[in-house]
């Protein structure tokens, strides 16, 4: 598989076309907005918390396929997780896309491991992590 196909795998293209948990979350407890001034991507992440647990999450905004698919898969991955578990996921995800995948257990990342190909495209790392940075701001 070429690096390009590795980056734009069908699961990523699918989440770009039909993003999950996309829209406005009524009654959200927390929210944050993220913006990448270099490319103009923007994302809003809204979260409902029950104690320390993420019971619901939605995102909105616009961006490239990588940022949109990453936000979509992120919301699916952290729903039902505790804040601490979400942070651990982000740490692993961040290490993987910045080329330190050998230091993380990519199995623990589940579907998020599909973004491993981003490491070959350093300028796209910010696209893949924008939603995660925004989530971190929302639940800090």
């Amino acid at each position, binding site marked *: 598989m*070429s*690096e*390009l196909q590795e*980056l*734009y795998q069908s699961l990523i*293209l699918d989440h*770009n076309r039909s993003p999950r948990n996309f829209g406005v979350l009524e009654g959200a407890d927390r929210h944050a907005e993220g913006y990448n001034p*270099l*490319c*103009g*991507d923007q994302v809003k992440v809204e979260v409902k918390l029950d104690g320390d647990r993420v019971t619901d999450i939605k995102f909105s905004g*616009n*961006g*490239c*396929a*990588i940022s949109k698919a990453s936000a979509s898969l992120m919301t699916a991955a952290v729903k039902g997780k505790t804040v601490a578990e979400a942070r651990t996921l982000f740490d692993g995800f961040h290490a993987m896309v910045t080329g330190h995948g050998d230091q993380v257990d990519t199995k623990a990342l589940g579907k998020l491991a599909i973004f491993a190909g981003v490491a070959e*495209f350093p*300028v*796209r790392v910010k*696209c893949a992590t924008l939603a995660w940075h925004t989530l971190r701001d929302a639940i800090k």
Partner: protein
Amino acid sequence: MIERVTFEKVTYAPIPARFEAGTPPVAEVIGLGVALDWLMGLDRAALALHEQDLLTHATARLQGIPGVTIHGNAPGKVSVLAFTVDGIHPHDIGTVLDRHGVAVRAGHHCAQPLMRHLGVPATARAAFAAYSTREEAELLAGGIEAAQRMFS
């Protein structure tokens, strides 16, 4: 630049030398000189025609691709081609084109109000120069079509 540095104290050189950081860009200056010599040795009128020919050719080629919109068609514009492709973000276009050997700039081009006016989040922009060729214009068009197949 500094005059004298110790662990306790730094004395800077007088203005303007204090604002000069380290080695000047020697290699860059020599490179620019060589590029200017090369450029001045060319027929400037023929050069302008060459760039316009590439622009005309690439414009016609991209206009023939369904889903491609060219932004900015002022008469007599320089040889740049800003465009968007339906359903594909310009940054994804940029990455796909890069892998086809074509470097474009993707983003808001330091012109966010213009992007808002055009109703697009960003555009991709190709530029043709003296050293560009029709084959490369064809690579651009082929790369856009490949991106469309990939994202269809």
